[in-house]
C-alpha cells in the first residue's frame, strides 16, 4: 500500500543539554515488522529530513532490544514506553518521538536517568553480603514470597513511572515509584531484611515515600506490570510501623 511505503516520524530534537528543542520530520522507508528503533537506525544511515535537508543523525539510547534494560525509553505518540517494543504497525502515524520530560535531556532522545540511581542509593536498594569471613548460605525464602518478589525484581529503572507521576517534577524532590518498590524488594529478601530499617529510613528521608500522592499512574504505565502501588502501600505501612517502633521503642525494630 502506498501509505506504507514510508513511515512519517516527527522527532523532538535537542543538540545539547542547554540548547532549545526543535522538531524535525523524517520519512523512513517502510519494512515489515519494523519497530521504532529500526526506524531510528534508518535515519542514522540516511539523516535527511522529509524536506530533503541534510541533518545530524538522531541520537537515542538502546541496549537489550527486548524490553528488559530500560535504556530506550522515550515518549512515543504521547506515551512513555520502550522504543524497542514499539512496533510501527501498531502506531498511529505520524509517529511522534520525544525525550521523557521528567529527565534532563543529554541530546535528542537521550535523557539522563541518574536521579533514579541516586534514589536507589537513598533507599539502599542492594543487599550487603561481604564479610571478613565466609558467612555461609543465607536463610531460605518461602516460595510464595519469592514469587511476588520476583515481579518486583523486573524493574529496569526505565523511568516510565517517573514520567507518568504528577508528583515527580521540578517543584518537588519526590524520588518516584521505582525506588520505593525496590526498597520493598530488598526488604522482602531474607538476607536483605537484616538491613530493613536502613532502607525504611531512606524511604522516610527527603523526597521519600511521603511524596507519593496516590495518583496511581505508575502502576498503569509500568511496562513490566510491577504492582508499584501495592509496594507503595506496603512501604507506607512499614515506614509507619518503623516510625512508631523507633519512637516508642520495640524489640521488633531492626
Amino acid at each position, binding site marked *: 500500500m502506498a501509505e506504507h511505503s514510508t513511515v512519517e516520524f516527527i522527532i523532538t530534537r535537542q543538540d545539547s543539554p542547554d540548547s532549545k528543542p526543535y522538531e524535525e520530520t523524517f520519512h523512513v522507508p517502510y519494512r515489515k515488522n519494523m519497530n521504532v528503533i529500526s526506524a531510528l537506525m534508518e535515519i542514522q544511515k540516511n539523516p535527511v529530513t522529509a524536506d530533503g535537508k541534510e541533518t545530524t543523525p538522531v541520537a537515542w539510547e538502546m541496549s537489550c532490544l527486548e524490553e528488559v534494560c530500560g535504556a530506550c525509553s522515550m515518549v512515543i505518540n504521547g506515551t512513555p514506553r520502550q522504543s524497542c517494543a514499539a512496533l510501527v504497525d501498531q502506531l498511529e502515524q505520524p509517529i511522534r518521538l520525544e525525550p521523557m520530560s521528567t529527565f534532563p535531556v543529554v541530546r535528542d532522545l537521550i535523557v539522563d536517568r541518574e536521579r533514579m540511581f541516586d534514589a536507589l542509593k537513598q533507599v539502599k536498594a542492594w543487599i550487603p553480603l561481604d564479610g571478613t569471613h565466609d558467612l555461609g548460605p543465607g536463610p531460605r525464602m518461602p516460595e510464595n514470597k519469592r514469587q511476588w518478589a520476583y515481579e518486583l525484581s523486573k524493574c529496569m529503572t526505565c523511568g516510565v513511572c517517573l514520567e507518568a507521576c*504528577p508528583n515527580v517534577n521540578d517543584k518537588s524532590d519526590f524520588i518516584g515509584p521505582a525506588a520505593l518498590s525496590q526498597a520493598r524488594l530488598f526488604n522482602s529478601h531474607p538476607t536483605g531484611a537484616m538491613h530493613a530499617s536502613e532502607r525504611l529510613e531512606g524511604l522516610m528521608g527527603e523526597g521519600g515515600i511521603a511524596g507519593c*500522592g496516590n495518583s496511581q499512574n505508575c502502576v498503569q504505565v509500568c511496562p513490566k506490570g510491577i504492582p508499584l502501588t501495592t509496594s507503595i502501600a506496603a512501604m507506607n505501612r512499614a515506614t509507619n510501623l518503623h516510625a512508631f517502633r523507633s519512637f516508642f521503642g520495640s524489640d521488633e525494630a531492626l
Partner: protein
Amino acid sequence: MAGQRDFYWRRLHSLLGVVPIGIFLVQHLVINHFAVYGEESFNKAAGFMAGLPFVILLEIFVIYLPILYHAVLGVYIAFTANNNVARFGFFRNWMFKLQRLTGLITIVFIAWHVWETRVQIGLGNADLDYSLMEGILSSPFMFWFYVIGVVAAVFHFANGLWSFFVTWGITQTPKSQRVMTYVALFIFFAVSYIGVRTLIQFAYGV
C-alpha cells in the same frame, strides 16, 4: 532526624484530615441536619454545641488549628503537583487532581463561611440561630456557593479517606483499594445528601 521532617509533617497532615477534621465535618453536617426537623430543633442542637464546656478550646484544638495546618500544607502539596490527566486519563489520576482542586475550593469556602458565621457571632454582629443561615442561604448565589463548598468538602473528605487508608498502609492490595473506592463513593453520596438537604431546608424551607 532532620531529613525526615517531611515524612512526619505529611503523616500528620494525613492524620489530621481524618482525625479530627473529617470527624468534625460529618458531625457538623449531621448536627445541622436538625434544621430539617424544624427551626426549634436546629436552635436547640446548635445551642447545645455552642454551650459545650471549654467550647473555645475545643474549637481551637479540634477545628481551627488542625484545619489551618491541613490547609497550609495542603496548598503547598496542591501546587507542587504537575497535573497530567490530559496525558494519563486514568480514574485515580482524576481523583488525584480533583482531590487538590476540591481542597482549594474548600479553603475558600471555609474562610468565607467562618467569617460570615463564627466570626460575626463572635463579634456580636449575629446570633447563632436558624434565621442566620436562612438569611445567608435565601440568596441564590450564596445557596449555590454553599452547595459547591459543601460538596467539595465532602468529596475531599471521602476521597481523602481513601488516600488515608493507603498512606497508613491499611489497604495494600488492588482489591482492598477497589473496595475502598466504593466505600468512599458511598460516603461521598451519603454525607453530601446530609449536607445539601440541610442547605435546601435553609434556602427554601422545604
